[in-house]
């Protein structure tokens, strides 16, 4: 057995899952955080090795032997996404402040990592459906643990589960329509988006961030909807509903007075922009959407971690007046601006070329859709600058204790900055890999149509 032939992908799922059980029994928050970091880091390493070696033949893991077929597999689409999801979990654990450790469930964080990495490692529709349904559980338990009402979340996830299972059972156009509905609910498309704002408002920020930022809805669309070669109007429906959501959520982000709701709408707008690329299912638009997906996950993830770090210092953040946090935390101000601008595709960041590609792809088929994407991006940019100016300018906020970034937070932000600027200054490898994934997805869809 060679190094590459080890079942790294299965280990990337199993290691955090195994870690969740002993961490759940640790009572000391600091010790739990350390163990969580160790297991999340080990899972991240396994997923990175799996990503690097995925093109080489490997031996069947225990799950493959159990089911008689490979359960987890990486291809051009999922290869960079699996380590990205693991990295987001690792960085969230890393950037958790000591003051918040007692309120964070590290066991659920590890369980969530296992489920989400498993989701992105699945290819078969039934396996994916199981993981998608399992992925809805950690936020629910987080809401219950905090004593908050979970009704809005349960209603939406119930609808999602019904549509998903119905879509898997049905055939033909009905299946496509049901799966489209499932994708739209999971993606937080208007009007089925209330669960996202509810989760961010009532859940813990870290748990909500991890549940939302990987944009699982897009993965479901790529794996469940696109391969069955749905009628054009289904994909157009996803695209148009997503475009409407992107503009609508960007507009609402502009007028929010609570930072968490602002972030929730900002995320919804970005996630919907990613789904817009599905509408035209051309190689360029889909490449743009896939490239934007990774870029948004990294930049919005970093933006969320920065907001979370601010909340850890100053409590729930209101956007009704100038708060003057710059003097207290200049490094956080820079991170806020960098990650925020990266999410709207500012030059030099990973989102720039991705946004250009997406707009270029959609304008070719429909200038109106291209205009909608540009309007949403412009509104998001205004919302981010407004939030920055409200939070970091104004009369100097001078707390009695140090509120600068900790070493762990700096490490987390540095890792994200490397990805944001690395992908922005040297975009070709990443864009080429997304192009291969788009071509593969479109070829599979064409083959299904022919069949």
């Amino acid at each position, binding site marked *: 057995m060679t190094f590459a032939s080890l079942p790294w992908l299965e280990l990337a799922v199993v290691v955090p899952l195994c870690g969740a059980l002993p961490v759940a029994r640790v009572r000391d928050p600091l010790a739990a955080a350390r163990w969580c970091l160790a297991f999340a880091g080990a899972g991240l390493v396994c997923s990175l090795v799996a990503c690097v070696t995925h093109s080489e033949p490997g031996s069947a893991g225990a799950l493959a032997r159990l089911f008689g077929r490979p359960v987890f597999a990486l291809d051009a689409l999922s290869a960079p996404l699996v380590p990205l999801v693991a990295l987001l979990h690792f960085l969230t654990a890393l950037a958790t402040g000591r003051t918040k450790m007692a309120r964070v469930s590290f066991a659920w964080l590890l369980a969530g990592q296992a489920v989400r990495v498993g989701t992105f490692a699945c290819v078969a529709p039934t396996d994916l459906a199981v993981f998608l349904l399992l992925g809805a559980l950690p936020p629910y338990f987080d809401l219950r643990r905090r004593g908050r009402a979970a009704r809005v979340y349960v209603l939406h996830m119930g609808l999602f589960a019904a549509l998903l299972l119905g879509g898997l059972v049905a055939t033909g156009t009905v299946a496509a329509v049901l799966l489209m509905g499932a994708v739209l609910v999971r993606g937080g498309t208007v009007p089925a988006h209330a669960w996202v704002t509810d989760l961010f408002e009532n859940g813990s920020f870290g748990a909500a961030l991890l549940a939302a930022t990987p944009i699982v809805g897009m993965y479901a669309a790529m794996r469940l909807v696109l391969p069955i070669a749905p009628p054009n109007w289904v994909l157009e429906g996803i695209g148009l509903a997503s475009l409407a959501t992107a503009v609508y959520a960007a507009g609402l982000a502009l*007028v*929010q*007075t609570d930072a968490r709701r602002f972030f929730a709408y900002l995320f919804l707008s970005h996630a919907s922009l990613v789904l817009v690329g599905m509408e035209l299912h*051309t*190689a360029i638009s889909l*490449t743009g959407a896939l490239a934007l997906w990774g870029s948004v996950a990294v930049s919005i993830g970093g933006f969320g971690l920065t907001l979370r770090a601010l909340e850890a210092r100053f409590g729930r953040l209101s956007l009704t007046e100038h708060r*003057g946090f710059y003097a207290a935390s200049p490094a956080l101000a820079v991170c806020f601006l960098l990650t925020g601008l990266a999410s709207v595709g*500012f030059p030099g960041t990973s989102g720039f070329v991705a946004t250009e590609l997406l707009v270029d792809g959609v304008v070719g088929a429909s200038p109106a859709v291209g*205009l909608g994407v540009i309007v949403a991006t412009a509104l998001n940019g205004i919302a981010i600058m407004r939030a920055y100016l409200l939070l970091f300018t104004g009369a100097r906020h001078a707390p009695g204790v140090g509120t600068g970034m900790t070493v762990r937070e*700096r490490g987390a932000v540095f890792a994200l900055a490397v990805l944001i600027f690395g992908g922005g200054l040297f975009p070709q490898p990443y864009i080429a890999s997304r192009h291969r994934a788009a071509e593969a997805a479109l070829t599979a869809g064409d083959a299904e149509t022919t069949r």
Partner: protein
Amino acid sequence: MTDLAALAVACGPVAVVAPLALVFVLGVPALVGAPLPERATDRACRALIAIGLLATLAVFVLMLATGDRHVVVNLGNWVSIHHPTDENAHYHFAVKFEYDRLSLPLAVLSFTLCGTIGAFAARYLHREPGYTRFFVLFAVFLTGMVTAALADTIETLFAGWELVGLSSVLLVAYFQERPAPARNGLHVWVVYRVSDAALLFAAVALHHTTGEGDFDRLLGTAPWPHGRAAIPEGQALVIGLLLLLAAAGKSALVPFSGWLPRAMEGPTPSSAVFYGALSVHLGVFLLLRMSPLIAASGWLAVAVVALGLATAVYAYLAGAVQTDIKSALSFASLAQVGIIVAEIGAGHWLPILWYVALTHLLGHACLRVLQFVRAPSLLRDYRELENAIGEQLPRPIGPLATAPGGVRGRLYRFALERGHLDALLVCCVVRPCVGLFLWLDRLERRWAAFLRGSAPVDGSSTAPRTDPTAHVAERRT
């Protein structure tokens, strides 16, 4: 290619890399919490700006020596994707820069003025808490200016355009302990985003029309201003109008002129180089670069002339009643920008006017920088002069005072209210949009409360009860 031409191509990238290196030299230590000391910052600024300027001048000398008036520096494709069989399914983002009669003067002007103002600011901002922040943003601005000036593709120009916008806004909000600069910064940002959106849409439309974003495909390979647009008149008009909208936002043309006096909240060095000299002329530069489109469409030329003249008249009237020196200078600057824009539009009938406009731009930028940096000490100079001659200096009668009685009052009111332009934009665009989104937000909350089975939370502390962007209607304090 001769040795001299090859040398020119080799020197070309240095002009872009030098300011970019300055961003990293100043920005990275600041990001890790160990900013460079003032002296090292000043030296890095001087050295890298001098390197960039020398490289640009070297290309200029080599162009004179070789007789080549159009040097293209192609750094290759930044991104390139191809479909194995479908010719239409390809995309590439080329990083190309060009040195010609238009880009070279603007690049030299950018380096010269930024070098001068950098040296001025090193003393002006000595021991200011935001010293490093100013110079990092200053370096970002210079990078954006040089990138936009030398760009040979519309995408590269857009990248530089955005960098200029961001640095400008953050410097407007430089004195961040007061809310007014932050509000004005947001106002400028909103106008810039509209401008950016128009430019991005135009860029993508051009990309699709010509298959590439390269200027030589769109405007022909002949050196500026002899290019010919490779698209029909109708398309030239539509794309030209989008570019005119982008230029109007960036250069504060009517109806976006309200942001220019607000931008004077920033420190004097940035006001001088941004809004007196370079940033405010970037929209003008865009119109000059796209002059073949103006040549292709008479209606576009008429629109450009009309907008330029309207801006010039507006700025002349508003500037006549300003009571602080920086606002007066900003409107004086805007009046000249309007005239330059009108000259560019008139170039459709008389192409020599494009050279006139370029010369006007360069001269105006230099004069205005001098006036801005002298502004803080002007009152003292006046006082010394009056002390020396023993009486008040003669005050010339303002232009509005000579207007006939009935018109005079209206003109004064129009000028004092700065043409009601901000109020017009707020009433017609901002308030309806914000009102709509606030109404939708209230519906959202009711819907969520219904799903939750609880009472609506309209009265909660986090629900927006007032217009959170109402400050855009406020006048600069």
